[in-house]
């Protein structure tokens, strides 16, 4: 007990278990106790619990993010298991949100998870996004990508976006209110009105 109090003094806000668990982070000057507590206070939203969302969820949970939100409305199928490493055979047929939450809390029970087993839509996106500090787009379709881009823009949250097609991967961070363009700058695919078919 006294030892725990001592450690608490040294690493303000981290429990003895956390000090041990994150010791490799704490010894990095770029992270340290302050950084670890910042991770602990952070809330990250993962859109999609598939090929990208699984590793993202696992790594962020292990690293000590305080709260992870996971959005997905699908269930685990056997064809997912070849790459979606957060799901397992015993969770076939289960909601992907619940399956991934089970895996990540088995790595780190200290984090909070919010599961949203619905489709991300125009009417629920703003309320969900507003609660999080960083948005991670791990979705697999265009409508969701445009929706996520717009919702992150209006909520002014950084958006870490990745996609995979066959052997090619893309990664971007969009935060147009800070600098650079957004997903629509990359993929406007809008035709000028003069060309719109009548």
């Amino acid at each position, binding site marked *: 007990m006294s030892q725990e109090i001592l450690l608490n003094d040294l690493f303000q806000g981290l429990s003895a278990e956390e000090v041990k668990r994150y010791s490799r982070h704490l010894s990095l000057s770029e992270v340290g106790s302050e950084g670890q507590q*910042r991770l602990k206070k952070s809330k990250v939203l993962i859109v999609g619990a598939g090929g990208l969302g*699984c590793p*993202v969820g696992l790594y962020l949970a292990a690293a000590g993010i305080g709260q992870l939100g996971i959005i997905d409305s699908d269930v685990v199928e056997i064809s997912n298991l070849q790459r979606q490493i957060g799901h397992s055979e015993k969770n076939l047929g289960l909601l992907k949100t619940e399956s991934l939450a089970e895996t990540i809390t088995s790595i780190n029970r200290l984090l909070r998870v919010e599961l949203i087993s619905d489709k991300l839509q125009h009417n629920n996106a703003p309320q969900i996004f507003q609660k999080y500090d960083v948005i991670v787009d*791990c979705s697999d379709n265009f409508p969701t990508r445009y*929706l996520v881009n717009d*919702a992150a823009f209006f909520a002014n949250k950084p958006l870490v976006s990745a996609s995979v097609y066959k052997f*090619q991967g893309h990664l971007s961070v969009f935060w147009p209110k800070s600098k650079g363009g957004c997903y629509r*700058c*990359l993929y406007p695919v*809008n035709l000028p009105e003069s060309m719109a078919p009548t």
Partner: protein
Amino acid sequence: MGLLQSTEVLKLILGIGKDMIGQLLLYDALKLDFKKMNIPKEKTCQLCGVNPRIRAWLDAGKVPVIEKIGFEERKDNKDQVSAHWLSVALRNRRNIMLIDVREPHEWEICRLKGAEHHPVNRIKTDDFTKDLEKIIVFYCHRGVRSERTLKIFQDLGYENCRSLAGGIDAWAEAIEPDMPRY
């Protein structure tokens, strides 16, 4: 990609290192190649540009018109040409006008030799000839934007135009394996 994504999240939260805000990283697993480029804010962007059409949440979240083209509509269009057809045609004829309708960052990655660059959201139909001797071939990344452009040109009375099925990606796969893909 998920690992890189998580690392960027941690860096953003910790405020360490060089951030990737406004940049695009392209990874080719087969070639083990990484390429990084800037994504400038486009003045014409409907969301973050100078005169955006999406001003409030009510207008947000919609997919730009072009992605809405139905699969059937694409499949049935007889004016799609294959990469093989195009490579033979380019070798044997001089009357092909190649039009790349992709965005500037895509044009930077790779392009077809002899192509003209007219990004789809800035293309002006008046710039093109209706001369039937010329075959206009549109191409994009995977064939959706070029197909849409083709449809619009056809509706405007351009009879001799085509779209490259599968886009420059299909070309790279079938004809030019050394071409960078994304």
